[in-house]
């Protein structure tokens, strides 16, 4: 069992455990912290796949900016487990069964897919480095990149319009 295999299994188990803890934590702040844990493990997977740019962007944008925004909103609202709305037990069971059924269907459908001999190359390959990604982004995807700025502007305006007092 090589180091790559060991790291893959370790990161996968930590990711799934943290994802389950995100869902079952009563306190929203704990959920945010577990979600940050999930993002760190997914960044670890990116490093394992040698997608270094995406690993760093995932940490900065998701674990850094977005999760701080979530924490900020939660603390602004002063939510704690007392104010957590309680849901009907049967609806919870139905939700878990629904998610489990989706998992079952997807696993059953993908189990016999023709991907047995396909390998995701780990540890090497140049395409994930910022040099190659930057060249492709600004040569082939320059227009979508510029349109992204319009998207951000509209999101900014939308957030301000929604957030302001009428």
């Amino acid at each position, binding site marked *: 069992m090589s180091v790559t295999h060991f790291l893959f299994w370790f990161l996968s188990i930590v990711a*799934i455990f943290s994802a389950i803890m995100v869902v079952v934590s009563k306190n929203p702040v704990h959920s945010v912290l577990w979600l940050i844990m999930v993002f760190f493990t997914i960044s670890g997977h990116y490093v394992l796949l040698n997608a270094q740019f995406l690993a760093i962007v995932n940490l900065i944008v998701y674990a850094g900016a977005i999760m701080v925004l979530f924490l900020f909103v939660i603390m602004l609202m002063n939510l704690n487990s007392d104010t957590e709305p309680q849901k009907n037990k049967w609806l919870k069971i139905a939700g878990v069964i629904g*998610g489990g059924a989706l998992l079952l269907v997807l696993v059953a459908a993908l189990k016999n897919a023709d*991907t047995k001999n396909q390998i*995701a190359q780990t540890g090497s390959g140049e395409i994930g480095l910022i040099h190659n990604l930057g060249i492709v982004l600004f040569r082939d995807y320059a227009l979508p990149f510029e349109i992204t700025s319009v998207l951000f502007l509209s999101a900014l305006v939308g957030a301000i319009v929604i957030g302001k007092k009428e």
Partner: protein
Amino acid sequence: MPINYYIFLSVALFCIGVAGVLTRRNAIIIFMCIELMLNATNLLLVAFSKMHYANMKVMNPNAGIDGQIFVFFIMVVAAAEVCVGLAIIAMLYRNTHSVDVNFLNRLKH
């Protein structure tokens, strides 16, 4: 690493996100579960991009790089989505003093 492992890991993370959306009623946690699903998809896209690269690198040294660009754009869209979504949740809290999604029907009146 066989691509099957990545497929099943992503499917598991995605289904945990779906189950979270279905079981929780706190709007912020539902939103976090959506982020979890987006990240499961991103992980699978990167794995497939490296699979395509491993298959095609002899012919095209940039094979599979589009998948990683796509992940980059998904992150961009997710950031914009979080910005608007949290504004909506803040507005919901201001109008109903709760983040329970069942109170969302009050926005009709």
